[in-house]
């Protein structure tokens, strides 16, 4: 599976206008680490609502960029949060790694 689905990314570019794609990529690269760290904080504080909401936003952004695998991982965490289940094992680390790959790829897609 490609890290970034090209068709989705092209659609995104078409919608934002090519000149704004860098702005979008930067916002994503800036915000995602914050979301992951807020999920860690929420996990420690057993704040299910904050955990779920951050997972939700991360999922939404991942899907926007066509980062299919990252989106699926975030969705799984969002659903666990929705079911009040914070017994997530190493899923957050896996998600962090997936984001690392996405970030690398996106940096190369800036215009």
């Amino acid at each position, binding site marked *: 599976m490609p890290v970034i689905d090209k068709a989705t990314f092209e659609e995104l570019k078409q*919608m934002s206008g090519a000149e704004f794609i860098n702005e979008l990529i930067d916002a994503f690269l800036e915000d995602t680490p914050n979301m992951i760290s807020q999920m860690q904080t929420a996990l420690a504080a057993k704040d299910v609502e904050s955990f779920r909401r951050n997972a939700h936003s991360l999922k939404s952004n991942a899907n*926007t960029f066509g980062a299919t695998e990252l989106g699926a991982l975030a969705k799984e965490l969002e659903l666990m949060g929705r079911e009040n289940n914070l017994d997530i094992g190493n899923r957050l680390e896996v998600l962090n790694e997936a984001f690392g790959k996405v970030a690398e790829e996106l940096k190369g897609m800036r215009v």
Partner: protein
Amino acid sequence: MTSKQEPGRLLVVDDNKVNRILLARGLEGYGHKVETAENGKQALEKLRSDSFDLVLLDIEMPEMNGYQVLETCLQDSELRHIPIIMTSSLDEIDSVVKCVELGAEDYLNKPVNPVLLRARVNASLEKKRLRDEQRKLFRTFATKEVADELLKTGFSLGGKFVNASVMFADIRSFTSIGEKQDPTDTIELLNNYFALMFEAIIGNNGTVNQLEGDGLMAIFGAPIYHEDHRKHAVRAALEMIELLKGFNVEQAARGKVQIKIGIGIATGKVIAGFTGTQHRATYTCVGDTVNLAARIENHTKEAQQPILIDQYTSEGLPIDIEIEALGPILFKGKQQPIHIFAVKQ
């Protein structure tokens, strides 16, 4: 169609920066002016301090979520007319249904498809433009309350039977007046005359629903029912005659033609509802009562009385309104003679 779309002032509300940038840049690309808000509270502040044509509203937000913003807007008479499109991810479909039931205009799934975004935003802006036009048009024909009620129900009042008072008013021998004077004078006379008549009718809770030449039709007690509709109709008629006196004094002073009018009122069951198309609709009333009011108005000339009413109208009047029974009259097309009363000034 999309190329003809006028740009709108849009507010994008989303706690997620990527979504905000994406929607704002996308919509700006289509020529719209876009402002953004990061949460519900900020959105309401912007909506209250500035004017917008459309809101794109995220559901999931901290502090004040999309539902709360939507509900607040719908309860606020100043914000209620701004259409709101909910933006949500596919798995929030239950929430979206709830929002549409509450009164959201439409919804869009995230990630937003550019073609759908443009089409749905333009459709919502076009609908708002039409509603604004109707609101403006309606406010000149009816009270603010009636206009608001109609806009709230989305002009969807299907045909129904209502008990109401129907008024017809006409200028006597208007055709010959028009033939004798300059056309500009005639149109000016009509405009001044209608302005005064509208004032009397709307001031007494009536709605003008037809204008034809020098004649008008008004309805009292509908679209919003009021138990005093008979009294309101007759008070409006008395006020119309009173205003006309002042009008004639002014006409005489300017060396212009003076006019007389006849007013007929009948009360009973009418069929009322909106007719027309999506682009142009009129509040229409039809039925025997409407025909009778027209016949009674027509009879004012022969009876040499400015205001004539039927019996049912006369039974709904307070004692300070003086009436005189003129006896039964058999109108053309009617099986039974109708008791007619003249209203005294």
